[in-house]
């Protein structure tokens, strides 16, 4: 049984465990806080670049929008497969920190390289390297969060990590904006500052994140065996079903923009609304998940998404619609993103945790990609209104199926007991 530093201190000092609120956060291991700090700093670095990238490529380098679409597609698509490789590598020798560190280092190197890359193929290569770095580090990092936390505190651990991660994502564009305006629209200071943040993130990882010893020996076969386990397979199936029925963020924002006829210049602010709610709710919902059952919170999160669809289909308009949709959309992420990892962690043996999480994440990402294609096609053929109805029906059906799948797991599993332990 894992004991965090805080709990050891409690036990030694004979402190009564009455103070539930404090205890909730004390259950979060220092390692998780350190990983959260690394993600926060690295996300500032990454989102600075993401914010200026379209401008830099099209306005700065003179890339044609056609080529930009190509590069953008590469940028988004390169992550999925390396994630599986990263998870597997981390498992094989239990070197989560090393593999995650390599991923962070690759992304850090990509920032100055972007500044030097003058041609389209070079820029594309650097962006792919950046994405490979992100793909490689995700599963080992989540496995490390999971391995560092007791089974009963997985929800709050992931909640805290995701809240810190999102804080970085919100700060990044602001920093980029500050640098860009200070440097009279010159792009290279943005890349230099981004590199500095990336280096700092690496340093924090190196100095403060501890690897978990033992539990080595994961192999491809071991990871595949995990998939055959009924509970994990049911979880993967639920995540995939719900993923296919999830209308992607850009569609939600596009529908919202159309519904209230939002000026295009405010369009980039919509994701900020979602992220802010996500940030606020990630920890509380993580704690709720630990107490009331993570499967329930995961399903409730998708009910929030269903409410977003409902609001978009309702005659409601104006600021109320925007606020309601963004709040529910952020709550959807807070109740599902980290919580899914928190459900999956305890189901996976330590030696295959990174590999198993990578399978789940990749499956969910592919399902969402498929869902996004399907929704795009439905939009083109039937128009946005009918497409959204179809999305809502599909999500409700998937939710019912997932409830059946996860419900079977919960009655059989010791999830509640672990939370009380």
């Amino acid at each position, binding site marked *: 049984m894992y004991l965090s530093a805080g709990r050891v201190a409690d036990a030694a000092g004979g402190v009564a465990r009455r103070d539930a609120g404090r205890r909730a956060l004390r259950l979060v291991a220092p390692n998780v806080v350190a990983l959260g700090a690394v993600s926060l700093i690295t996300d500032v670095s990454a989102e600075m670049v993401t*914010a200026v990238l*379209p*401008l830099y490529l*099209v*306005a700065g*380098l*003179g890339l*044609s*929008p*056609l*080529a*930009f*679409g*190509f590069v*953008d*597609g590469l940028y*988004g698509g390169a992550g999925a497969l390396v994630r599986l490789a990263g998870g597997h590598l981390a498992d094989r020798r239990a070197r989560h920190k090393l593999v995650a560190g390599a991923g962070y280092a690759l992304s850090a190197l990509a920032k100055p390289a972007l500044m030097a890359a003058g041609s*389209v193929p070079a820029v594309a290569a650097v962006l792919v390297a950046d994405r490979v770095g992100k793909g490689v580090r995700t599963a080992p990092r989540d496995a490390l969060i999971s391995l560092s936390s007791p089974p009963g505190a997985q929800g709050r651990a992931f909640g805290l990590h995701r809240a810190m991660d999102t804080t970085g994502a919100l700060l990044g*564009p602001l920093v*980029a*904006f500050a*640098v*860009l*305006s*200070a*440097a*009279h*629209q*010159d792009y*290279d*200071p943005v890349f*230099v*500052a981004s590199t*500095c*943040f990336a*280096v*700092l993130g690496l*340093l*924090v990882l190196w*100095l*403060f994140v501890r690897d978990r010893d033992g539990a080595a020996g994961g192999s491809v076969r071991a990871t595949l065996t995990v998939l055959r386990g009924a509970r994990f397979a049911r979880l993967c199936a639920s995540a995939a079903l719900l993923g296919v029925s999830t209308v*992607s963020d*850009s*569609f939600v*924002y*596009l529908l919202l923009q159309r519904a209230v006829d939002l*000026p*295009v*210049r405010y*369009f*980039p602010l919509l994701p900020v609304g979602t992220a802010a709610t996500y940030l606020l709710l990630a920890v509380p919902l993580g704690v709720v998940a630990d107490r009331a059952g993570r499967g329930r919170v995961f399903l409730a999160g998708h009910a929030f998404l269903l409410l977003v669809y409902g609001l978009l289909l309702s005659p409601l308009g104006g600021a109320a619609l925007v606020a309601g949709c963004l709040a529910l959309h952020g709550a959807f992420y807070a109740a599902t993103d980290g919580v899914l990892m928190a459900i999956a962690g305890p189901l996976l043996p330590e030696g295959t945790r990174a590999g198993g999480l990578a399978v789940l994440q990749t499956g969910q990402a592919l399902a969402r990609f498929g869902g*996004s294609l399907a929704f*795009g096609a439905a*939009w*083109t053929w039937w*128009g*946005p209104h009918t497409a959204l109805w179809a999305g809502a029906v599909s999500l409700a059906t998937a939710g019912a199926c997932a409830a059946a799948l996860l419900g079977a797991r919960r009655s059989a599993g010791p999830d509640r007991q672990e939370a009380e332990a």
Partner: protein
Amino acid sequence: MTLRTRLLIVVGAAVLLAVAATGYTLRAAARHPAHTGAGARIVLGTPGQIVFRDMRMGPGKDHLAAVASASPGAPRADSGLVCARFHAAAGTGLCLRNRPGLTPSYEAVVVDAALREHRSYDGAGIPSRTRVSPSGRMAAWTVFVSGDSYGGTNFSTRTSILDTRTGHLVPSLEQYRVIKDGAPYRSADINFWGVTFADDQHFYATLATRGKTWLVAGDTAKRQVRTLHQNVECPSLSPDGTRVAYKKRVRSAAGGNPWRLTVLDLRTMRETPLAETRSVDDQAVWVDGGQVAYSLPGDYGSDLWTVPADGSGTPHRLMTAALNPVF
């Protein structure tokens, strides 16, 4: 290492990195004092002169510059006016430039013959094309608007038309009625780009919908466009108004070089591929009735080339590191 040592290392590194980033930013800021400094005096419409966007690295980068058309390689006069895209006619210029900010946004500035700024209009997007009508009264521009497309990976365009005399602005041509193949047409995925004016009321442009493009003839009084010919992008009307030079998509976009510079005779609808075989992604400019000028990628982003408009001859490089010439 104790916690104290590790904290000291991180704090020390953070301070060093912050100093490095700040120092670099301040040095970059010092490189460019404010933009639009007063430069050489350039008067639009001066005979025997080419005005263009200077693409060379250095203090004059992205400024409007001028050279004598007899010696385009000669030293350039730098006006100091920053423009990402530029066009002018009859003493009125339209300068499209990027505005600093988090999201892509631009400013369309109407300038007079002495390049003094008169009115300006802000909007969201990245400058792409601009044209002024032959009389200098109407101006149109196209920008790429991010986050305005289905998948989020593609850009969509927005085209605006301004009456510089009345100040009346049509923010998006998508408000216009579309007559496609003789019948009214509506679709959510319509995009317009590359306006070229015949006169102050009539223009041509590209309309894209469902993955195909059309040359459309537009009318600002009727607020309507109708399709004329398929597979036409970035049309440019000849000085006599009888022909359109444009980008014709002849290969798949996947290879990155889909376009062939082509001239369409508006009376016979006959297409003439020009002698330039490299893929051109530009709205060509007519040098005179017999030649068109266009941009191709070069060492500094763009070089200017010319080629006869009748399909004969060979391409000729007019100047390096330049874009958007006005003859």
